[in-house]
């Protein structure tokens, strides 16, 4: 494993953030299955090292745009469990006062410009945020998260072209989890994904998205180069989603095998890998790790209970926030 950060505190925070994402998703999954959560939701479990590795290289001033599979980005960018669960349950105390839900959760206090339910819909937004940074001379960087499925959208190529022409501080982070909804990526993506960015003269990287230290090391470098005006960059992160496309996608045999899922879970889990590394390196003991896990589980359980008891928005809010004052 690469070693980017050298500080015990940083390592443990990365571990903690990954576990927080997994724990958040386990609870969200349960809320959904028990019919307490309305709508539709997409689990990030399995991809934690991508969001954490990248977001740990960012500050609150740096922006991200997120996707329909966005809980992980939101947690990694520093969001609070209670406000997130409230949002998932449509409660007034949610990040978006219950108006956005799982697919539109946004947390501008930490620079999260929001999840987006249109696949590829946020690529313009991320690039625009970077244009604003350049025009206003601020040194923040924007990371655009999107999946392999979104690489089929035309918008991506329009904005990468402009980002390259104008040298914008944006990092396009393609979370390639192998499946575009219910279809293997090989069936929807011709040629090489990174070569598409390279065609615009954008430096592109392909990396193991299950190795949080490797992801973080690369992210640190690219963020620093963006701040110096050397952007944009493109990163394809090889990762895996443990759940289906959405929670209800349970019979997946027709597009991927249980053996494949098992292999990723047992041999390439980003949390298990990093935990083992932390113990081997003497950064933390098994007991300390278990204590962290238990503490996060309790946090999540408390947040779920809080959100379940929280109030729905008043009906008078239905036509509030259509227009800004």
């Amino acid at each position, binding site marked *: 494993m690469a070693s980017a950060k050298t500080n015990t505190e940083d390592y443990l925070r990365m571990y903690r953030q990954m576990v927080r994402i997994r724990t958040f998703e386990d609870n969200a999954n349960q809320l959904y*299955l*028990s019919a307490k959560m309305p709508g539709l939701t997409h689990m990030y479990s399995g991809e934690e090292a991508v969001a954490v590795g990248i977001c740990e290289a960012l500050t609150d001033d740096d922006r991200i745009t997120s996707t329909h599979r966005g809980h992980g980005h939101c947690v990694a960018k520093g969001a609070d469990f209670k406000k997130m669960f409230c949002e998932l349950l449509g409660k007034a105390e949610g990040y978006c006062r219950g108006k956005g839900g799982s697919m539109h959760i946004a947390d501008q206090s930490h620079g999260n410009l929001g999840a987006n339910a249109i696949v590829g819909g946020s690529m313009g937004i991320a690039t625009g945020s970077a244009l604003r940074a350049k025009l206003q001379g601020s040194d923040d960087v924007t990371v655009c998260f999107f999946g392999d499925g979104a690489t089929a959208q035309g918008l991506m190529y329009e904005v990468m072209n402009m980002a390259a022409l104008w040298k914008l501080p944006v990092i396009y982070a393609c979370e390639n989890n192998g499946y575009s909804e219910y279809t293997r990526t090989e069936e929807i993506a011709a040629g090489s994904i990174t070569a598409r960015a390279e065609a615009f003269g954008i430096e592109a990287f392909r990396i193991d998205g299950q190795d949080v230290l490797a992801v973080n090391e690369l992210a640190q470098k690219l963020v620093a180069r963006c701040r110096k005006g050397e952007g944009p960059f493109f990163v394809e992160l090889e990762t895996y989603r443990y759940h289906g496309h959405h929670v209800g996608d*349970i*019979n997946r045999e027709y597009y991927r095998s249980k053996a494949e899922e098992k292999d990723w879970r047992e041999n390439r889990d980003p949390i298990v890998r990093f935990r083992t590394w932390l113990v081997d390196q003497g950064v933390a003991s098994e007991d300390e790790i278990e204590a962290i896990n238990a503490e996060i589980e309790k946090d999540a359980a408390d947040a779920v209970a809080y959100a379940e008891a929280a109030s729905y928005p008043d009906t008078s809010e239905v036509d509030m926030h259509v227009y800004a004052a």
Partner: protein
Amino acid sequence: MPHDVTMPQLGMAQDAGKIVSWLKKPGDAVSKGDALFEVETDKATMEVEAQADGFLTGVRAEAGEDVPVGQIIARITDSADEPADEPEPKSDATPGASATAALPKGREVTMPQLGMAQDSGLLVNWQKAPGDQVAEDDVLFEVETDKSTMEVPAGAAGYLAATLAEAGETVPVGSAVAIISADRPENPVSRSFQNGPDETPKVTAPKKAEAEKSSQPVTSNARSSAQPRQGGRILASPKARRLAAERGLDLARLVDAGHPQPYHAADLDRLASLPSPAASGPAVAAQRLTAELDEEGLTEFVSWARNPQGLADPDAILAGLAGACLPVSGTKVVAIQRLGVQRSYSVPAGPDLSQVVRSDDRPALLLRDLRDSRLRHVEMGAAEIPVLTMMAAGRGLSITLECSSAQLEAGDAINLLTEFAGRLEQPLRHLL
């Protein structure tokens, strides 16, 4: 802390899942991640895992049972013998549960959920009849959603013991539409989804549509003067109507004066300048005629009609007797008003009073029955349609006809009242 095991929600519009089998027994020790039971929804079958370590207790749903999503079906407790406090009674109050009681036992075939936000499907037709033997892959019925039409297989071998929805009905997804039994059913059931719990066979009573078809409005051969305006509606702008109402003016007088429609605000000045209604000419003269009967035969006739004849509605008889006296051929509509309640009947040509049925059409004649009141004299003036008023007069009756000359000419008015009075005196005359 006990952990509730609930029926999982797997799709957006899914209400319930079926427990296919339990993979753990009550009292078994379970670990987080162990498969607890298999559940089947309209979309798929999946194993449900334990979300906590402990012992499986308080199981309250059996294999084969359909359970609403989110309902607690078991608990995982810290010890095997921990009395699982009943969180809620087992729900058997799901819609249609009472209906299943009388149905044959067997596997329910439900309306499948075919789309993400689909609530119901249209049952296009049945491919099997109740009582038919079916194989697992046999097509049972066709269902149509907004997206597509598909054939739904039986899903199990056996006999089609019940069909619970009729072709053409729209059924919520997840609702049972058929039952497949293992054994040949003795009394296969067929019913509509709408009448679900009602076990009584469908009565093929005379259809309302037919009755309506036969009750044409009176206009066909009636003189047009009886219907001064089409449907009684005057064409006028909203503003003209509002101003007329505010100024107490009747737009009908513009019609009677022969002024062409539609009317606008400007026409109100012309209306205001028309001579007052009282001074209007003979064209709309009011007519009032009264007949007196020393004895009436109606009461006896009504009781005879009820038994042995089986005609239970005395108003229908009255309507039939009165309708026959209108100087119009074909079907007529007569309204009967008593104690403030008004009901209309369509009266076909001919003496058969059993053919007189309720109608929603506009009446051509109103019959006010005031026999139970203390009124002995009415003089109300012409209304929109001719009005007959019946009042008690000793052992007999007094009958008044009021109408305008535009509605009935004098001779027709006299004939109508004479005929009607005669029928009330000797109802059997009607049948001759």
